[in-house]
């Protein structure tokens, strides 16, 4: 039982497989003889579904820990900078209706909650604009840093937009060439178990049985190990998050208009929303919708109408790729000596780019808590399952918040979304609390929360500025401090607007010159 853990076998490539492989291999020194061995088995003919092209700022740490050069990553994966998301038409559906969820925390976030001071006197500014300089950087299409900034260092906190297919290939090369990950191209046809229920080895068509101490299921929707072998149920979340279908398309830039938006643009529709992500070489655009509320023809029509605004009649000639989204989460993620990462663990609509960040979180947790031996594995597994049940529930709450804070009454999709029967109790409780005080760190107090209270504030007050009852402000010093913080934000906004280059300009320079490591 206490045989030391020496060999991790990852079944499936893609972002999930390679991020997990790279994280474990880098931390446990797989390239050396006494490190933990990592083997990744990838089917030669499975097409990788490129889930989402947006990341969270955590990706910078994830890549850095794997020893990846940011310059090389940006050059090879068609990467642009992402400074948050702009939500258009989510509140009223009017043409001028928008709010931002930036990645920079509100000014003085850890010292004073600015919400109530902004509510008392907003000086004509939205919440995100009053407390954070990033909204204006996004509106002006500026980059989050300078060409003189070192790799991974930020002037304004940032994440990436990337080509998921190129990203998986890039990670694969890095894992094999630099991190000592063993790569096997083979079909996995079955599993050999021992009497405790543990997996002894996986049976491959081309390379026979491959044994290991821990098996990571990164096989996506097919969930070969966690689903087919262990029969862990997949819990549908469609009752809460209605979106179940996506229509996706790639759009080349129009000549003379090749500005790259430095944020994800999410525009609400009658029965869903449209994502618009700018990469250096193209835009990725897609309509996600609820098939219970609209049909494919109408969804295509809505997408064409959206694209017509930027590319005119060319929007009539496009072919859309249809992707089914089955929103849901596995009941457990770690069983015996098998843990599921990526879509095998769960998948939700891409509203807040949670797919890659959940993979990173899983990969980091598994590497940091890698059980020393089989004896400790069950304890680690139990903690892991609790933690990730919590994480998935928080993401579901956060996504649902975007729908229930909306004021839209125009279609059944928006009205149904606010039916209390569709809202998790945990979120209902928080909404009740937040009627009397803003979201605060106490509400999300676990280590490595996916979304902080700041994210909830940006969305809640972006959508409904008066959601929380005004509080009585009694402390004069705090009021003065709040005024200082607002001024500080104004000053930073002015300085950064002057100093930062356009997103396109910096990305071109990264390709030409690259960032320095220091």
């Amino acid at each position, binding site marked *: 039982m206490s045989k030391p853990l020496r060999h991790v076998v990852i079944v499936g490539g893609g972002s999930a497989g390679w991020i997990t492989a790279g994280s474990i291999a880098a931390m446990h020194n797989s390239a050396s003889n006494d490190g933990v061995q990592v083997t990744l088995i990838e089917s030669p003919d499975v097409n990788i579904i490129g889930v989402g092209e947006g990341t969270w700022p955590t990706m910078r740490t994830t890549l850095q820990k794997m020893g990846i050069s940011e310059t090389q990553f940006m050059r090879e994966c068609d990467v642009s900078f992402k400074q948050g998301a702009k939500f258009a038409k989510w509140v009223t559906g009017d043409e001028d209706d928008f709010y931002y969820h930036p990645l920079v925390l509100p000014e003085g976030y850890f010292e004073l909650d600015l919400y109530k001071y902004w509510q008392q006197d907003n000086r004509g500014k939205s919440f995100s604009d009053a407390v954070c300089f990033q909204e204006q950087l996004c509106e002006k299409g500026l980059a989050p840093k*300078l*060409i*003189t*900034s070192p790799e991974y260092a930020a002037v304004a906190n940032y994440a990436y937009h990337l080509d998921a297919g190129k990203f998986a290939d890039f990670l694969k090369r890095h894992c094999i060439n630099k991190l000592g990950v063993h790569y096997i191209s083979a079909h996995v046809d079955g599993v050999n178990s021992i009497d405790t229920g543990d997996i002894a080895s996986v049976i491959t068509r081309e390379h026979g049985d491959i044994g290991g101490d821990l098996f990571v299921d990164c096989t996506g929707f097919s969930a070969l190990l966690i689903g087919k072998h262990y029969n862990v149920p997949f819990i549908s979340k469609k009752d809460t998050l209605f979106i179940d279908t996506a229509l996706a398309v790639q759009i080349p830039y129009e000549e003379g208009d090749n500005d790259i938006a430095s944020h994800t643009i999410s525009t609400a529709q009658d029965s869903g929303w449209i994502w618009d992500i700018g990469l250096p070489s193209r835009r990725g655009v897609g309509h996600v919708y609820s098939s219970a509320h609209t049909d494919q023809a109408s969804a295509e029509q809505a997408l064409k109408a959206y694209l017509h605004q930027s590319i005119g009649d060319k929007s009539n000639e496009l072919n859309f790729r249809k992707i089914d989204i089955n929103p849901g989460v596995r009941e457990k993620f770690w069983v015996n000596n098998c843990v599921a990462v990526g879509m095998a663990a769960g998948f939700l609509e891409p509203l807040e780019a949670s797919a890659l960040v959940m993979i990173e979180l899983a990969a980091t947790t598994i590497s940091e808590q890698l059980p020393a031996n089989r004896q400790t594995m069950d304890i680690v597994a139990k903690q892991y399952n609790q933690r990730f049940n919590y994480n998935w529930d928080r993401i579901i709450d956060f996504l649902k918040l975007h729908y229930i804070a909306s004021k839209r009454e125009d279609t059944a999709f928006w009205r149904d979304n606010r039916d209390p029967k569709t809202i998790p109790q945990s979120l209902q409780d928080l909404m009740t609390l937040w009627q009397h005080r803003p979201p605060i760190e106490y509400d999300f107090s676990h280590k490595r929360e996916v979304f902080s209270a700041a994210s909830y504030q940006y969305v809640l007050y972006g959508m409904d500025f008066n959601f929380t009852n005004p509080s009585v402000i009694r402390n004069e010093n705090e009021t003065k401090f709040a005024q200082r913080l607002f001024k500080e934000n104004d000053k930073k906004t002015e300085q950064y607007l002057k100093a930062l280059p356009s997103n396109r300009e910096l990305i071109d*320079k990264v390709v*030409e*010159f*690259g*960032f*320095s*490591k*220091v």
Partner: protein
Amino acid sequence: MNINLEKVSSQKHHQLKVATDGRHQNNASIHLCHLALQEISAAAAYYPIFLLKDSDTGQFQPVALFGLDIDENIYQQANLWNKCYQPLKLTTQPFFLVNNEAAPELAINVSDPRVQNDVGEPLFEASNATVYLKQQAASLSDLTQGFVLNNVFINELSKYDLIEPVELDIAFADGQQRQLDGLYTVNREMLEHVDALTQQQFEKSGYVKIIADMLGSANHVKVLIDLKNQLNKN
């Protein structure tokens, strides 16, 4: 300074002269200057030498520091400027090389106050280039080649992670303090860990001496502080 470049031509510029007397007066208010690789050691005898990122490209370039503040030339203020090494980037002025399709061409900044028709070195005598003009052209070519050598040098340093940021915390006698950032130098410790073969190559390319001179030149920062303390007293 206005820059108005004209391609040097014996027809158009046959009367033109460059005032070389006190010709560096224009440089009273510069606080640093780019250096070419081959002049780093010479410049290091007088100035602190660091690496600085070009604001346009983010690429490192060796620079000589003349002051501790923007537009401050302490050497000039202390009347030491004419006794110090003059970097190519300055001595080649008001001449520049401009890129043409075929080959780089010699150009002159006609807006430079040193450029006039009355005093100084003529560019041409009887339609022939003067020794002065030929020397300036040769220096410019040295400078251009030096910048290419710089890139090779910097790439080698980056490849082995030998560049590190330096933070200079400066305290003046009158109690004023200043922090200079954005400056970089070579990491001595990392340099010792470079493999033997690379060490040999560094020795052969002259990098070892250049790096040593550069590291040693950091002591001139103290000289600058002392000079400035003196100047402030007077």
